[in-house]
């Protein structure tokens, strides 16, 4: 039976540039914009800790926060791939579900600093008004005239994965005919300082799953996926670019910033997503790992993959994109889709040396795959673990 939830189109913007072609090129070559965030982050630490930035030439102009502009840029590509216009979708029950972290946080640091000195300026009221009265999800719904549910998912670094999973559940429940979903986040002082002060940021390019891994590099980006019910896809004449086959989220309840060392929550999420999809580990072409290159994350993931998904190739992509926080899972869902539709898993850039404690070596060169579905995982502060099972365009053919 054909899956109920189709991916009509997808779009992306990240340190590789704008668009899926730029991302695919970055995944092939390992090249992307990795630099100190001078001019973007006003921190005394900004001369030591580089990040993955969207190249200047690709930063979309316009009004609203960067996170909103990134998401709308990705959304346009998703509509274009699907061959539909927002106007066509506005005639259906179309929702918007966006995962984010920075975009939903009270990150108006300069205004806050002025307020704390009793020196608030008129412009601060506009900045605070923007923050307290809108969100990327609401702004996107308004921009495109969509009238279905609107949700901002804030499960930290699992937000993007959860947003896609919940959006798929809206389709499966019959709540929506279509959902524009994904994730978005921008570089900002708060997470920049925060991750460095938690001592999990690296001064070098991250090395996922490596013995000598030294932490994460934060990044920025967005992706948007246009999900359609099967009947909406048929009505609109959209040939699916892929499918959302399963989703689950399980909480660790272990620690505010570290996963359970044996990945209990992640194991539950992967098992739950597989169960929902009706598939087995052996059906998976590859795993897109969260693979932040922090000691704790990579160890917990390795434990679970060795237990539940032994033998399935693993790809780790944050060596090209950085850790895009609330957008990470959503961009990685698009990466998974690209790999499935190209029949190829891309190298895990940054991986250098096997860690004997992990018993895991990720894919290091392009590898052909013939299976048509994959699992994409995200782990987050607060103990959230989420997994998606995605099918490529040939799934079920």
């Amino acid at each position, binding site marked *: 039976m054909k899956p109920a939830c189709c991916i009509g189109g997808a779009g992306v913007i990240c340190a590789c540039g704008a668009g899926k072609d730029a991302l695919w090129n970055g995944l092939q070559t390992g090249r992307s914009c990795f630099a100190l965030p001078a001019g973007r982050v006003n921190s005394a630490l900004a001369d030591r800790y580089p990040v993955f930035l969207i190249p200047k030439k690709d930063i979309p102009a316009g009004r609203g926060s960067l996170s909103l502009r990134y998401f709308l840029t990705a959304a346009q590509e998703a509509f274009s791939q699907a061959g539909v216009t927002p106007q066509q979708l506005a005639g259906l029950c179309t929702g918007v579900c966006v995962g984010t972290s920075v975009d939903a946080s009270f990150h108006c640091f300069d205004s*806050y600093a002025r*307020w704390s000195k009793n020196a608030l300026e008129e412009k601060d009221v506009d900045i*605070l008004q923007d923050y307290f*009265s809108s969100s990327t999800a609401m702004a996107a719904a*308004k921009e495109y005239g969509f009238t279905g549910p609107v*949700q901002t998912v804030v499960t930290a670094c699992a937000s993007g994965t959860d947003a896609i999973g919940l959006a798929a559940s809206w389709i499966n*429940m019959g709540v929506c005919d279509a959902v524009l979903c994904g994730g978005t986040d921008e570089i900002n002082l708060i997470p920049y300082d*925060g991750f460095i002060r938690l001592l999990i940021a690296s001064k070098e390019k991250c090395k996922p799953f490596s013995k000598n891994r030294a932490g994460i590099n934060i990044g920025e980006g967005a992706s948007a996926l246009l999900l359609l019910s099967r009947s909406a896809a048929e009505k609109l004449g959209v040939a699916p670019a892929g499918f959302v086959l399963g989703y689950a989220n399980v909480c660790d309840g272990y620690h*505010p910033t570290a996963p359970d060392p044996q990945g*209990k929550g992640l194991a539950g999420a992967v098992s739950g997503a597989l169960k929902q999809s009706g598939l087995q580990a052996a059906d998976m072409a590859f795993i897109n790992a969260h693979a932040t290159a922090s000691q704790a994350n990579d160890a917990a993931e390795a434990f679970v993959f060795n237990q539940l998904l032994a033998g399935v190739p693993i790809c780790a992509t944050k060596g090209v994109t950085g850790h895009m926080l609330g957008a990470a899972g959503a961009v990685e869902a698009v990466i998974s889709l690209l790999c499935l539709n190209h029949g190829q898993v891309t190298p895990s850039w940054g991986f250098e040396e096997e860690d004997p404690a992990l018993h895991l070596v990720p894919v290091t060169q392009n590898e052909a795959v013939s299976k048509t579905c994959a699992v994409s995982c995200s782990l987050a502060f607060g103990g959230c673990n989420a997994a998606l099972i995605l099918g490529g365009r040939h799934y079920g053919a």
Partner: protein
Amino acid sequence: MALDLYIEGFAVCAQEPKPEDFSPWFEARRLRRVDGLSARLLLSACRALDMAGQPVMQEKPFGLSLGVGPGSLQNTCKFMDSILQDGDELSSPTAFAGSVHNAPGLTLSLFLNLRGPCVTSGQFNTSFGAALLTARAFLHNGMAPYVLLAVGDSLNPVARALNGQYPARLAYTPAPDTAPVQAAAFLLSPQKTPASKARIMDFDFTFAQPAYCPAVGEDWAPLAAAPAIQLCGLLERPGHHFTLTASSLGVCSFLKGESFYAYQK
């Protein structure tokens, strides 16, 4: 959206929780590092579980759907204060970790031993509808046998001060005299049980649907928890049927149900 959800237990936290409020379940010392928003959500959740006759501390595969307005502003401001006072190099990692929107999710899952799905929604006044929709998805997909839905706010001094100065310009800025401590929780089931207190029969959560959205009264506090607290009030009231409409920022929640609770009391 046709929907059958059963409310097994519900509770409001209307005042700042004191350590002794938790004494039926936890030692006060366990709460030393719990921030205000998490404490309010936790107390509401304990009471809702208790009312439903469910174990509070025992490990359980229940889901958790949180709605938190703008997240833990208390911790976000603490983190920014630490940057301002101590500089970037000595800013507080603890405050940063606590500022993450779903940090209260960790507190609740730790204390209540919840091992099901956990998702937090953060969109100011409209978080309740989003969290209810998520709870519905968890139950519909069989991801959990019960879902704890909890909604709360963390008000910040900047927003309060700005509201005094610019009342018409900011949507999510409670008036300076708004009670700063509000949270509510519900335990939801997909099936009717002997503990069921109410049934939610219909629920719409849509953007810009004026048909369902009458003007919001002036006494309506612009907070994430407001509709949840309103719902608790409706459940307490005698009478079978209730409707709840909440509208803000173009997003509308419309909910229709019947209460058994007043007749059980």
